[in-house]
């Protein structure tokens, strides 16, 4: 029982990180209709920048958090302006391939700029262990779950009530009609990329806080895929919850079936889910005209 609870809690914590990155995917998908295959790499860059700030400027939590968020916004905006905006109006397949190309470039750039050794992000907190009913939990793990939940609420409200949120949904549904209605698609896309970069970046920084930075971190993006797919690509809330579900499944599979199963539990799960619901658990079915 103790073991099960331990697995569940650490599954929730890693799942919250997946959930944050998956929300990054979903925010971009919801407003631009694209899957951003460079999400894992963008997450990684934000985490590396946070680490650089913590070692060179100051290890203060506020400074690191502020710097990382600023860097993530900048990263999202630059990528949108330089790489994605010229592709506006091109077929989806071509644009998605551009993000794959971008992922390759970013990953090599990271290896080029930073070294290949693992680094721990130290901001003086987040690694202390709290006892909750006999189970050891790191404060960082509690913080990431709380962050995920509050961001979920905030984003739900944003898409539901704010004018910009509605505009984003309109652009995703049909960008030409949205343009005719006077919505600036470019501004919507820029906002989506910046927001997605920040949300996923927060996940990346939390990952660096609880585990370590390493060049293999881009795999977080691949791990968060199943979460996004599970929730449905266009469901931001679903992706966040999908992340938690994947994290728990993965940890239970790892704890009871062996480490090989841990690696693929998420992927096996989405194959099963997609067989039953081809658009994810919370995703909306596409209606096509011929």
């Amino acid at each position, binding site marked *: 029982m103790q073991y099960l609870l331990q697995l569940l809690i650490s599954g929730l914590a890693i799942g919250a990180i997946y959930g944050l990155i998956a929300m990054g995917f979903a925010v971009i998908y919801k407003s631009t209709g694209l899957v951003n295959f460079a999400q894992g790499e963008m997450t990684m860059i934000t985490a590396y920048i946070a680490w650089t700030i913590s070692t060179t400027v100051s290890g203060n939590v506020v400074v690191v958090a502020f710097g990382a968020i600023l860097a993530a916004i900048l990263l999202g905006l630059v990528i949108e302006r330089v790489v994605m905006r010229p592709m506006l109006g091109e077929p989806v397949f*071509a644009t998605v*391939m551009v993000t*794959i*190309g971008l992922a390759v*470039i970013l990953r*090599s750039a990271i290896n080029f700029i930073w070294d290949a050794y693992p680094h721990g992000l130290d901001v003086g907190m987040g690694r202390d262990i709290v006892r909750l009913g006999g189970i050891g939990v790191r404060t960082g793990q509690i913080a990431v779950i709380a962050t995920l939940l509050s961001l979920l609420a905030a984003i739900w409200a944003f898409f539901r009530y704010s004018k910009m949120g509605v505009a984003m949904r309109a652009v995703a549904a049909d960008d030409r009609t949205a343009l005719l209605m006077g919505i600036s698609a470019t501004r919507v896309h820029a906002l989506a990329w910046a927001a997605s970069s920040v949300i996923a970046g927060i996940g990346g920084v939390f990952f660096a806080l609880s585990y370590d930075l390493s060049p293999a971190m881009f795999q977080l993006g691949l791990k968060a895929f199943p979460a996004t797919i599970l929730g449905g690509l266009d469901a931001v809330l679903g992706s966040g919850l999908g992340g938690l579900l994947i994290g728990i499944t993965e940890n239970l599979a790892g704890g009871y079936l062996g480490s*090989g199963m841990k690696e693929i539990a998420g992927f096996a799960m*989405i194959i099963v889910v997609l067989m039953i619901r081809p658009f994810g658990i919370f995703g909306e079915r596409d209606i096509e005209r011929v």
Partner: protein
Amino acid sequence: MRTGDYKQTYGELVALIDSPPVWLWSAVLMLALIAAPHVLNAYALTFLMIILITVTGALGLNILTGYTGLISLGHVGFLVTGAYAYAILVSKYHMPPLVGFLGAGLVPALASLVVGAPSLRLKGLYLAITTLAFSFIINTVILEMRWLTNGARGISVQRPEILGISFDSDAAFTYLCLGIATLTLLATLNIRRSRVGRAFVAIRDNDTAARVMGINLHAYKLLAFVTSALITGLAGALYGIYLSFVSVEGFPFLLSIEALAILIVGGLGSALGAVLGTVLIVLLPEATRLVFSLFSAQLDAVFTTGAQELKSMLYGLVIILFLRFQPRGLVGAWHDIRRAWVNWPLRY
């Protein structure tokens, strides 16, 4: 005066090669390729081998992604299955290499049924991600089935001897690759001009419309998966033999992306494009290295220390630039040049 390239009969439309000059140049190219192993040095010959093996794999992916429009991000899964099937049959159970190649085709084809069948209801990106999941699952399966695959230790593979002919030397192995690549090219071209190929393209253009016109979507999508996996598996076996060692690390996820990059750079949905794209992508790092070394020794040094990173950055950059400026790929550029040549001095 000739005003265009008109096809007047159905036979002309589906002809494999539609004009005498193309016949001539194909023959010249074939002769050059046959002579190449005796002319090129060992270093250049490696590139020729890689190009021929990669062409086979790219043509395999082209059937699925280029013709049928089903995006696969997990084709490396079929590549690694083919390589392992060959290695296990030939190195472990000492079967003749021909049986090995047969297995390298059939095992991925069976695996493709397993991944294809659940994917029939999926479209676009959802399908891409299922294939991605498949390639990760297959890697874990290979690592876990230690009794069959030696797990992470891998299996070493010898160059084969088929029907008494030894393919041990580089030149002989190049001929083997050349033979398989040529047969694959002919096979894909023939598939494209048959009823099956037209069904594939109809599914790519609009699957609902194709279904309304009486094309059995499930059967043809599965057929595309099986054909594609079979060819890719053969390429995997060749690549395994080329590496002389089959392991999961020898087939990284990047290969899937490289294969898609080849198709896009060449021109999606065209066999010629797959060939041109392969040549460009395989030679790109080498060409860049040459240009760098021409300019200065210092740049060359940077290139050797960060070679791997710069190489992959180039991949990414080339993919993005092609999608941005020449979405129809090298084949599109070639068509433009040809049209400009024929119509000169008129625009069209």
